[in-house]
């Protein structure tokens, strides 16, 4: 059973992103290519990064509450405070290093957990590309990270990888927390 954060990603965030994708697709097929096509694509990049950050933050919060539910009531607040204190995903982009730092608070080795599926290496690379593109757009830098123009196909690939990575995170944390708590975390 997926976490509520993953369900929200799949049923709400992905649906919204699909609508933005469709809008990008319609403007990028106009000849000559309007400036609006580039603006839409830039918006898609930032929204994808923002929605993935929102998922990661919500999912981390759900993990905190699952762990806190496993301790006596007087200690719940302590666990909740400590797991949230200086959480990187609250103020930083959803870079892999950020996710690793935050989720490893729960006592797992995220690199080792992700290495169980060889497909995750490419997903992490795509996450890195997304974050570089997000910074290019948000800071209106002069050149793209790749040196070439932003491409809708690339953003779609990054979205697909974010979606697959979200599912992997959910599986990994479910198994890890279930081992710790002795009950299903969600």
């Amino acid at each position: 059973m997926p976490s509520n954060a993953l369900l929200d990603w799949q049923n709400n965030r992905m649906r919204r992103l699909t609508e933005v994708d469709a809008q990008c697709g319609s403007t990028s097929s106009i000849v000559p290519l309007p400036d609006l096509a580039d603006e839409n694509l830039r918006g898609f990049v930032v929204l994808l990064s923002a929605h993935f950050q929102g998922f990661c933050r919500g999912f981390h919060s759900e993990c905190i509450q699952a762990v806190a539910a496993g301790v006596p009531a007087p200690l719940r607040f302590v666990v909740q405070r400590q797991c949230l204190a200086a959480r990187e995903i609250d103020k930083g982009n959803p870079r892999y290093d950020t996710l690793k730092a935050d989720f490893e608070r729960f006592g797992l080795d995220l690199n080792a957990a992700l290495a169980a599926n060889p497909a995750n290496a490419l997903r992490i690379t795509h996450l890195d590309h997304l974050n570089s593109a997000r910074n290019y757009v948000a800071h209106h830098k002069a050149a793209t990270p790749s040196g070439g123009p932003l491409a809708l196909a690339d953003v779609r690939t990054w979205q697909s990888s974010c979606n697959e990575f979200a599912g992997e995170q959910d599986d990994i944390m479910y198994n890890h927390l279930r081992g710790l708590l002795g009950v299903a975390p969600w």
Partner: protein
Amino acid sequence: MLAQKTSEIKRGDHVKILHTAGVVGRVVALLGPLGPKGAQVYRVLIQRKPKPAYVEVLGDQLETVSSVP
């Protein structure tokens, strides 16, 4: 400071966090059903020095209060 348990906690409410040494704060966000069995999670801003802090708690840990001293 009057306190009462409520199931209708809203953004902006002043709250006391139960099972703490009288920690009080203000609800700044309802994060959705991220707690056990879909329980609502609340983000609470706690005023403390040297800087304010946030905590995310469940509704059954909160009591609304008329104001935060």
